[in-house]
């Protein structure tokens, strides 16, 4: 081996290499950000826009939203859950003494805003949609935004007060994907935005749309929104429209919801995604699930158990069980479910109670509640209402059945707040329905960036 040659060639090569690297440095330092996708390439055609929308549905189905947090945190504020087996964030939520350091509540807030961002990005690039697809895409965006705003305003702002001007601080309304500081709109303004979005969705969406939202989905949510506002005529109108014209059946089997097969009653539901390896909706299912060796994270009160088991013939009593002296809800024991967001059952409850509140169409309402009670107690049950029952009797039956039908689904607390907003004297576990601790604090970054008023904490005990 000739050493000199070796050295010379090494020097020559390294020298040349160094010249090369140093002379073409810009390329050298601009490493390719492999896999990065930037905004300029996300929404060029129908397929892109549909992926943006689809991501909004994906966001709805995540654990931090309809995958469980939304239902669980709602129930923790109410009167269903037994506080003695809770710890951590769930315990402080139950104690109505949570603060900005509750990561579950912060994560939920972020997740619930995700469909809104997807909607706003879609609407920003709507011009890139084909004429044929444009309405449907826009309708989906308005539906996602309206639904999320409605869910947010109920958890992070004080309830809508019937007949009030509702100037109490609501939530920020973001209608564009550009980042900019924003203030909280009033509860009234938020509800008007929700109604506007859902009405646009109603207009723009088709009557059938696979697993995605249809005009009926929009109308059903509108019925829920109006009912929450104690606007009974509109609630009746929209609930009635979906029940009469939507083509959804009333499921004769109470147990189909929260099953892998799903129920034909679902006006809007989220898909389980059978090839999803991580399992969807597990925060809801897992927190209640009674099949494990240990107690589930959520157990229910003796009172809720007793009410659920009160009528011997009630088929829904099968939803309750006990373990080592604790009361459990086994309604969500399935490993895989199609997750209903709104069902015909709830629309019937809305229609019936709206009828009672207005003292109009009572027979329609009585039929609705009897459908539900027949399914639960059997056709010969003495609990069924006579067709000439008065509004008060009807309302009482609807409220009892609502509590039993929708137990554990995250409905109860908002129902109590609605009744409070209707001027009734409502206490929740010994605290007035609109005490500060019954709504959640905004996550700190949201408050810091926007410099808006934070919700006070505690004050419910």
């Amino acid at each position, binding site marked *: 081996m000739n050493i000199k040659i070796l050295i010379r060639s090494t020097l020559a090569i*390294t*020298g040349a290499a160094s010249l090369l690297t140093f002379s073409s440095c810009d390329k050298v*330092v601009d490493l390719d950000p492999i896999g990065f996708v930037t905004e300029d390439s996300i929404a060029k055609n129908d397929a892109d826009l549909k992926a*943006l929308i689809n991501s909004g549905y994906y966001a709805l189905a995540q654990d931090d939203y309809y995958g469980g947090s939304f239902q669980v945190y709602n129930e923790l504020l109410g009167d269903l859950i037994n506080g003695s087996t809770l710890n951590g964030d769930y315990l402080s939520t139950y104690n109505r003494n949570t*603060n900005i350091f509750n990561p579950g509540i912060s994560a939920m807030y972020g997740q619930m*805003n995700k469909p809104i961002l997807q909607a706003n990005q879609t609407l920003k690039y709507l011009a890139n949609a084909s004429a044929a697809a444009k309405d449907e895409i826009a309708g989906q965006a308005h539906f996602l935004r309206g639904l999320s705003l409605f869910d947010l305003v109920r958890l992070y702002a004080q309830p809508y007060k019937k007949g009030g001007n509702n100037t109490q601080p609501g939530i920020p309304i973001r209608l564009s994907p550009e980042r900019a500081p924003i203030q909280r709109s009033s509860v009234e303004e938020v509800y008007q935005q929700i109604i506007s979005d859902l009405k646009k969705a109603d207009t723009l969406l088709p009557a059938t749309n696979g697993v995605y939202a249809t005009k009926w989905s929009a109308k059903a949510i509108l019925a829920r929104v109006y009912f929450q506002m104690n606007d009974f005529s509109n609630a009746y109108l929209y609930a009635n429209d979906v029940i009469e014209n939507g083509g959804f059946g009333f499921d004769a089997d109470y147990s189909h919801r929260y099953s892998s097969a799903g129920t034909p009653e679902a006006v809007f539901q989220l*898909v389980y995604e059978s090839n999803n390896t991580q399992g969807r909706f597990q925060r809801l299912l897992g927190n209640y699930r009674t099949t494990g060796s240990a107690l589930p994270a959520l157990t229910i009160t003796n009172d809720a158990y007793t009410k659920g088991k009160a009528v011997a013939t009630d088929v829904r009593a099968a939803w309750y069980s006990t373990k080592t002296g604790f009361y459990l809800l086994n309604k969500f024991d399935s490993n895989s479910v199609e997750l209903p967001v709104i069902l015909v059952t709830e629309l019937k409850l809305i229609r019936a109670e709206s009828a009672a509140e207005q003292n109009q169409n009572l027979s329609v309402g009585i039929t609705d509640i009897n459908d539900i009670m027949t399914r639960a107690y059997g056709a010969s049950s003495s609990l069924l209402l006579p067709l000439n029952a008065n509004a008060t009797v009807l309302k009482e039956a609807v409220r009892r059945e609502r509590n039993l039908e929708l137990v554990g689904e995250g409905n109860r607390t908002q129902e109590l707040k609605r009744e409070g907003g209707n001027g009734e004297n409502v206490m929740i576990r010994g605290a007035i329905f609109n005490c500060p601790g019954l709504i959640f604090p905004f996550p700190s970054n949201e*408050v810091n*960036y*926007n410099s808006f008023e934070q919700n006070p904490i505690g004050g419910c005990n």
Partner: protein
Amino acid sequence: MKKSKESLTRIFTALLLFMGLSLTSFAQNVVTGKVTNSKDGEPIRGVTVSVKGTKTSTQTDIQGAYKISVPQSNSVLIFTSVGFSSVQVPATAAANVKMDEEMKQLSDVVVVGYGTQRKREVTGAIARVSSAEINAVAAPSFEASLQGRVAGVQVSQSTGLAGAGSYVRIRGIASVSAGGDPLYVIDGIPVSADPLALESSSKSNSYLLRSGFTQSPLASINPEDIESIDILKDAGAAGIYGSRGANGVILITTKRGKLGKPRFNFSTKIGFTQPSVKPKLLNTEEWLQVRQEGWENDGHTGPAPLPGGISWADAQKVNTNWFDELTHTGVTQDYNLSMNYGKNKFRSFIGGTYGNDESYAIGNKFTRGSIRGNFDYNFSQKFKASLTSSYNKGLNYRVPAGWAGGIGASMGEALPFYPIYKTDGTYSTAQANPLVPIKENKFRSDDNRILGGLTLSYLPIQNLEVKVNGNLDNYKNLTDRYNNNKIYNATSFNSAERWKTDITNYNFSATATYNKTINADNKLTFLLGGEYQKSQTEVLHYYRSDSSVNTSFYDNKSLLDKASVDYVNNYPNISHKDSMLADQWSFISYFTRINYNYKGKFFAQALARVDGSSKFGPNNKYGFFPAVSLGYILSDESFFKSSLPFINYFKLRTSYGITGNASIPSFRYLDNFNASAGNGNAPYNGQGTIGQTQVANPDLKWETANNFDAGVEFGLFKNKLTGDISYYNKLSKDVLMNIGLEEGYGIGGSTIYQNVGKVRNEGVEIALNFRAIQQKDLRLNFFINTAHNTNVVLDAGGYAPDAIQSGTNETRVLVGYPLGTSYSIIYKGVDPTDGLPLWLDKDGKITKVFPDVATSRRPAGKLIPDWTGGFGGNLYYKGFELNTLFAFSTGLDIWDNSGKNQFLGASSGQNWNIRREFLDRWTKPGDQTLYPRFTYDLYPGVGNPSLFSSNMFLYNADYLRLRELTVAYNFKSDALRKIKIENIRVFLTGTNLFLWTKYKGGDPEVNRDADGGTADRNMSPNVTYLTAPQAKTVQFGLNVNF
């Protein structure tokens, strides 16, 4: 080829002829003699003896003896050796020579980055740590051994566990969201040294956290291979590293061969290790009593319920001391053999090591094996090649700690009345049993690191040296973990997990150095260079949990077939099949340094570096980092010598310059959309999704530090007292802060890196060395090095404290306060009437309802020290040595993040063990106590125990520890020399033998840095969460040179 071979032969022949000629043409006299140390009369080996005016030279042997032929009787011999003043004597027949040791500090050559300088000529702030100091203590990794050695370098170990990482800060901390660690450069390559690299992927994937403490990625490097460590502190020194110099630079130089016959060194250490402090916790009887007390305090009657439905009778039968069950006396053993050889043009250093170091935690040990070969070859006067190579393997048998269980659980969830075994002898798993994971699980972290480089140096003309240098740092870690889940529940599956990390890091530099002597008084040195560095990281995560999993992937590779593979990366839109890349970045740099030397007493240096990096966007891709510095040896002036004769050496030094910090994740300047919005990779309804995960900041750029440094270096009273006193003022601007995105934007948890902050670090450093006695048989030396640092946040970009990502602890960035300020609810003691805690509400009024953290937190203390340092002494008497090093840290608090859970251990939702000190609590009206009454139902306003954060658990963390105590004896005699042994040193070293602190919760030297990533590491250095204490170690050692 043939032609040059011929020419080589010709040159060789010519050389031989010339030598032959010189041999024959002059009358030859042979001179023999012995070279000894004037101080103690010991022979000096390896002294170069040359004949003045010729090329003839030789070296002294082990006896200090030499033999050399001189051409004439009036020839002069020159004796030179590193560390000694050179001596010239006439070549008489038997020239015995005594050599004087030089004042070490001044003769030393220090490494300054892309070159070396004599210490006296250095104009920047540089401190050197020797090989002996690095190897003096038992440390999990070499950087931990820097503790207490250098003024202004703060070192604290995360835990006393094997392979534990350390927190190293030079001249305070200015970085919040960018890495605050110094740049580690080993033999010219900036190496991968991120202690978080093995905990998460340093991204946001919290599920990747592997255990409750960091592991040092440098632990596999053999400390015995290290010749010296030079720490560059100011811009005058670190400025040459430009955009990466702001946190200081630690230059590690490994040993290289020296001229002479093969010399061997063998050393071994065998030792025993135990926890420095054992936690003081309640036993069963006490815990039950406290439970009942809290229960009754809250108005309940009857016996308090116990966790898990255990009956009082059963509980009273068991009393487990979990900490004792999980610890033992660990045995450490290390062996090291190296060889040094140099002949003619060739020099070599070859070394190998093996170590097997158990920690005090059962099941935890670090096994290190490494080999190194450093070779130099001078092809000619003009050509030189240097090869540096090492392979380092470190195998860490890890155990969970902190929040992850193990020793952590023994101080928390494992209550004393939980049994280890059931009556049938099997493990009791109904309640916490931290022994089960230690015994039944497997957790193995395997480091493999190749470090190597080739430097070619060429002198084309006189005074010009051109160097090209290429280095490779390949770091592979394979962490395997197996969890036996069946033991808890027969129907669950065991799980096997593997993290495969591969970081390849290479650099390439070319420099030209030109020395220009204008005249005898004015000399200039120019350095011009360029460098390119690229780093690529691949991280794969394998997971499997099904009925076939019965051991780790490491022990059964066939299990990998059906493992799921996660690709841990910055690039969510590509699968690992497309590319293995997890992270990559590159730097391209140009730099220059000009040194001016006037009469050997005035020195000026100007340097500048331009760095371009892939980490920054088009708006700010390049940064410019200049620095100027001056040095003036006043003591060389005649007026000084005459008027202040007791001052032997006095140098003034000052520098000003800009350095930078670019340690942030890659591609944060871009926005990004994930094709699978949210967590996980699932589509919705089988259709694709796309959602935003990152917002863009095209203006993202370097964090810069404006450094001012001024210092004096001196030697007084015949250099008996030497020292270095420095002042620095470092203003960091455009501090990189990772701002939490407003959650309502819709990508909750996402953050944006912005250059928003301003932080000042100002301080003084004092290093003194006093050689009290210097005699042949008796030497006594005292030293102290200490630094005071004042840190203040001047600007936080208007962001509220909670907006800036500050990790998982209660520290925040607060304008007007130091980084790492504890921001918490203020505890105002106990109401003696009812024992309830008192707090300050948002208006500063006393309240009994725990106040809202959103409005009522206040700065409560700081977690970074005022003073850090070390002091000690060295005594030598007739071969005996006594060396001590005390290390200290004062003016800081410790945030005891687990204290709240331990304090509320007897409350219903907590069920943890309780520290004994908390027994100082209220029990009856009138009691004046440190702590409130125990509670079962929690205090008013406390939603859950984890929200019970207040300065009740913020404690003074000042400490002083006996870091090193060594007793040694040196055998050095003619008898040994006859059997070719130069010397033998036997020693007994104690590391961390004593600790003085007021902190009652254990050892206050902690850092809980594994949880919140970089932000925690910067902001919460002194936070404990069930931290495994430091280790105290006693080692017996033997060191033989032959």
